[in-house]
């Protein structure tokens, strides 16, 4: 029996299943969070009908998308039309497999890393996979045999090639400081508080911002969402797609968002490390946060205006309090705290993604191109040169 649990294949399959299930749920709920945040920015409630505060809306959306008529227009190039969404979602999910969520943990007899696999070229792997993701969008635009789709596909491939350059240069700078390409070692080189993170300790503020900007463009998000600009291109490259094929593109976009956010955290923000060492009490922060929100929910539940909230607010408040208590158990702290910090940092960056979508208008296409080639690329280059010089002088 022990041999079974210890075997590499068994552990990997279990990890793959867990990560897949969690990721799929996260993708569905990220959509809910996005709609909620944008709604609140625009002073409206957002999804509200399905479940308390629209919490079951993602479930309804999934059912809706699955049961919709799956239409294949007669004039499309069938092979590539069907291949495109598959390609997009595969490449988007593939890059999650090298992202480490936390340190090595001990579950019963098995000791394993909270990561599918650690490649010694992990960073390059993610770059390679994300550069293959362009084909999904470009092919979708071309195979649809629709002018709007084609324009969307062309825009997206030009945009992704252009922004990949500053992105790679921005990634190279923290790699120089950490002196590794493995994502796990990258985090280990930044342990011990926020002053060791590449953002602060390595003074990589410029490359961090270049990375984030390029990440927006790579994931086709506002203000760089020209491939799907509604008011000029109907829906861009996915105009002709319906039902689950449309959902595949949607899921790919959100999965890519999660990947780049996780990459930003791993490269610049110290991965799963707490902002300051646990000797100074960083392990008490997560339970305090949950305690605070639990109490807020209980307080609001007491004087709720709506009938439902009288039940749901205290229920969620109690759940939060239980979570706060779980964080205080020393046995689970070893893996729960790193996971919390990783998810908190990734979530913060994802929130910025949504925040900016609610705030900024779209770029014009020529602005988009001149911005990356005339500003972002030279700045990234300069930053890399200066970083290389500093690293060379320091290690001498």
């Amino acid at each position: 029996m022990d041999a079974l649990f210890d075997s590499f294949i068994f552990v990997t399959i279990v990890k793959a299943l867990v990560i897949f299930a969690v990721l799929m749920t996260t993708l569905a709920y990220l959509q809910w969070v996005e709609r909620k945040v944008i709604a609140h920015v625009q002073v409206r409630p957002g999804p509200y009908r399905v479940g308390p505060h629209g919490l079951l809306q993602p479930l309804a959306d999934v059912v809706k998308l699955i049961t919709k008529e799956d239409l294949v227009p007669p004039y499309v190039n069938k092979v590539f039309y069907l291949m495109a969404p598959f390609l997009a979602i595969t490449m988007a999910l593939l890059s999650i497999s090298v992202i480490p969520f936390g340190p090595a943990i001990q579950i019963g007899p098995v000791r394993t890393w909270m990561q599918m696999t650690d490649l010694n070229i992990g960073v390059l792997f993610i770059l390679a996979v994300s550069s293959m993701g362009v084909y999904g969008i470009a092919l979708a635009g071309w195979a649809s045999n629709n002018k709007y789709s084609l324009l969307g596909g062309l825009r997206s491939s030009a945009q992704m090639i252009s922004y990949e350059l500053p992105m790679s240069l921005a990634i190279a700078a923290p790699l120089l400081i950490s002196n590794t390409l493995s994502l796990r070692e990258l985090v280990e080189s930044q342990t011990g508080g926020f002053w060791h993170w590449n953002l602060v300790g390595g003074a990589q503020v410029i490359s961090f911002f270049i990375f984030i900007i390029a990440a927006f463009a790579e994931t086709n998000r506002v203000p760089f969402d020209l491939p799907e600009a509604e008011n000029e291109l109907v829906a861009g490259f996915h105009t002709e797609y319906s039902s689950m094929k449309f959902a595949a593109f949607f899921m790919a976009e959100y999965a890519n968002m999660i990947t780049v956010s996780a990459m930003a955290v791993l490269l610049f923000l110290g991965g799963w490390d707490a902002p300051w060492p646990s000797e100074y009490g960083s392990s008490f922060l997560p339970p305090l946060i949950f305690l605070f929100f639990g109490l807020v929910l209980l307080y609001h539940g007491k004087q709720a205006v709506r009938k439902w909230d009288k039940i749901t607010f205290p229920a969620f408040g109690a759940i939060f309090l239980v979570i706060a208590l779980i964080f205080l158990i020393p046995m689970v702290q070893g893996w729960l705290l790193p996971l919390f910090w990783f998810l908190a940092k990734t979530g913060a960056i994802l929130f910025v993604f949504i925040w900016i979508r609610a705030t900024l208008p779209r770029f014009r296409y020529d602005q988009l191109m001149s911005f990356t080639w005339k500003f972002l690329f030279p700045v990234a280059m300069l930053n890399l040169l200066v970083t290389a010089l500093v690293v060379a002088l320091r290690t001498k």
Partner: protein
Amino acid sequence: MDVILFLVFALIAVVAAINVVVQTHPISSALSLVGVMGSLAVLYLLLGAEFIAAAQVIVYAGAVMVLFVFVIMLLNAGAESKKGRSYMVQLLGVPLLIAFLGLAAFFVQSMYGKETVVFGGFQGGSPRDIGKALFTTYLLPFEVTSLLILIAIVGAIVLARKEID
């Protein structure tokens, strides 16, 4: 396991390479070429040259081929029409192809026939080794190549400028 993987991806590479020539539509050919690049990357990985494998995917499959596909889409190139082939070409083509393949196989066999390939046995494929080799042993070829690329870029811009003015 290694042998099975090698056979599968070598087969994919060969079939995709033939497909590049056989397909009449440029997009299909370009995507078959992507398939060739991808399976070559897997073969590099099997030999233990992980950096070259990653570079192969990033540079060739990810950047060069995306540009190819982009240009094909932009020009909206249609499928080739089949022209009548001459009788001579059909008669000579197949034997000449077989003769060429036989010659190539013979020369490869005579040059590298005694060496055995060990899967994962390649040393010096890590990013560190390759960086060191590029900037010490092969510094001159490396710099000359970058100069060549610069000349190509300048040439492309000059050619494009003429059209615009």
